[in-house]
């Protein structure tokens, strides 16, 4: 035993340090990338952000006229509302479905059915967002016109359903992991006390898995906020203050995607699109921060 250790012991330090430094590099690089991206986005937008842009107007005006010839106006209020409303609607649909599916898969399923479900859910997660957008533009558009008697189906509801379908797989797989992580002894103890299956889930499992479930929901929400292609195609892409699920909207991400490709580099409009990028960065940062604080709060209490 000792001999063996010595034999490999000569080589191990070198290999180990090599691997260690490689792993360290991987860890550090993710930080570098985040800062690099932030620096790049900030650099592109900074010139106009500090020189000329009326930030108050940028955040509160709904007038988005970036290509006007004599009166350019950069108000993103409608876009911010669009992003938040469609995300909220998506979460309204996705959270009950996602958590319900996770509970079903982890608690009620037979093992064979569970395997099938997991594969199908993974497959759902693998569908590219442009395909969802395409489905929204064609199938869901028709469906909403038929069901709600709406004049046009490219609405917040359409985008919300698409986003919900995209975030459900994330919510299901993370929530299922969280439920699986609850020790079986909890279940056994509750059942031994005569609790029904529902009572076990409601009173024991859900509170025990709270952090994981919250993380699942927040990651689902983050996916929705950041999603671009599907909302670009399904929501109508219209600068409009939403008045209900059947109004058409435009999101921050879709605006960048639609306009950045055709804008002259270094132009005011180009810089404003990067400032929208900074805004999105800030929004996700705040969401993550709140999530962290909430989870910490839950842990402490």
């Amino acid at each position, binding site marked *: 035993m000792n001999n063996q250790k010595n034999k490999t012991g000569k080589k191990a330090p070198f290999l180990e340090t090599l691997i260690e430094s490689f792993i360290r590099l991987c860890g550090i690089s993710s930080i570098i990338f985040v800062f690099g991206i932030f620096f790049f986005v900030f650099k592109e937008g900074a010139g106009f952000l500090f020189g000329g842009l009326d930030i108050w107007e940028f955040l509160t005006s709904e007038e988005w006229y970036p290509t006007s010839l004599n009166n350019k106006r950069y108000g993103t209020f409608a876009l911010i509302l669009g992003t938040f409303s469609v995300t909220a609607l998506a979460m309204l649909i996705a959270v009950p479905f996602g958590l319900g599916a996770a509970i079903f898969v982890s608690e009620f399923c037979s093992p064979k059915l569970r395997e099938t479900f997991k594969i199908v859910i993974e497959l759902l997660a693998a569908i590219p967002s442009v395909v969802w957008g395409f489905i929204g533009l064609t199938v869901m558009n028709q469906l909403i016109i038929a069901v709600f008697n709406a004049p046009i189906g490219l609405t917040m509801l359409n985008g919300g359903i698409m986003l919900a379908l995209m975030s459900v797989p994330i919510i299901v797989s993370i929530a299922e992991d969280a439920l699986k992580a609850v020790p079986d002894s909890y279940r056994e103890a509750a059942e031994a006390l005569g609790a029904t299956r529902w009572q076990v889930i409601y009173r024991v499992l859900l509170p025990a898995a709270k952090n994981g479930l919250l993380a699942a929901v927040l990651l689902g929400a983050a996916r929705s906020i950041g999603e671009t292609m599907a909302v670009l195609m399904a929501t109508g892409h219209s600068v409009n203050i939403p008045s209900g699920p059947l109004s058409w909207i435009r999101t921050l991400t879709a605006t960048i995607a639609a306009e950045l490709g055709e804008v002259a*580099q270094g132009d005011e409009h180009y810089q404003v699109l990067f400032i929208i990028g900074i805004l999105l960065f800030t929004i996700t940062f705040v969401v993550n921060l709140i999530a962290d604080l909430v989870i910490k709060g839950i842990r402490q209490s």
Partner: protein
Amino acid sequence: MTVDKWIREGYVLVLYIVMLSCCLCFNSCSSNSGTANGSSNAKRAIIKNKGSDTMVNLAQAWAEVYYGVSDTVSVEVSGGGSGTGVAALIKGTVDIANCSRQVKDKEKQQAMENTGKEPIEFIVGYDALAVYVHKENPLDKITIPQLAEIYGEEGNITKWDQLGIANSGCRSDKIIRISRQSNSGTYFYFREALLGKERDFELGSLDLHGSKDVVEVIGRTHCAIGYSGMGYATDHVKMLEVAITSDEPYYAPNLENVIAKTYPIARPLYMYSLGEPTGEAKAYLDWIFSAEGQKIVEELGFVPLESN
């Protein structure tokens, strides 16, 4: 355990087959999208051609036919919008940029600074922007001032009955304006044709991302009105006749009217090369101006140069 595994594998296989067949189906439907003639010809010189979405079908048709004409060149076409083409031209990454608007002076300057060459302009055909409505919409004609009131900022036409028609398919009677993303060449041209340089479009239109999408959505929407190249017409939509004012005659967007310059919303289509074109690029442009090249312009619903 093994049975489980087998079932699992079987499942994945079936799903892949389904997806694959979907892919094949998609492929056959859209076989002329993407890059044309990009594959399997390492020996051929490549002309890179990029830009306007309005012109992408035309550019692809040219590239495909030219592949048979020349055995030394293959043309790679991609879309993305006029601005994308110009941006690529400024970076010097394309040989020819397609543009449904004129390149701005500022962009010309940038190209000069970046590459040392000036973009040279060629008009390769004309495009009429048709005003589309759903095929069951009773409206047949419209004037430019009416369009200006529908699309323009603080315009006062918002309902179909203000145009003197009963659009029974549209229950709310509200006009749904279909437009394009605010920096597409088509958007710029249409705005200028309707409102001149002073006025903007009213917000709240559906700003779609391609010429084809506009027609597609109008074909499904009774309340909608929109604009797109006349080559994009389908069986589900109707093109309106347009007059400059209500006192003038109305003209349908067709070949004769555009050639006679009576149809009011028509514009030239441009190609730009960096510096005077030479060699293969020059041969390609010359061929585009030839009778054969111009015939393709007409076949795709655009208006050729020659008859002008």
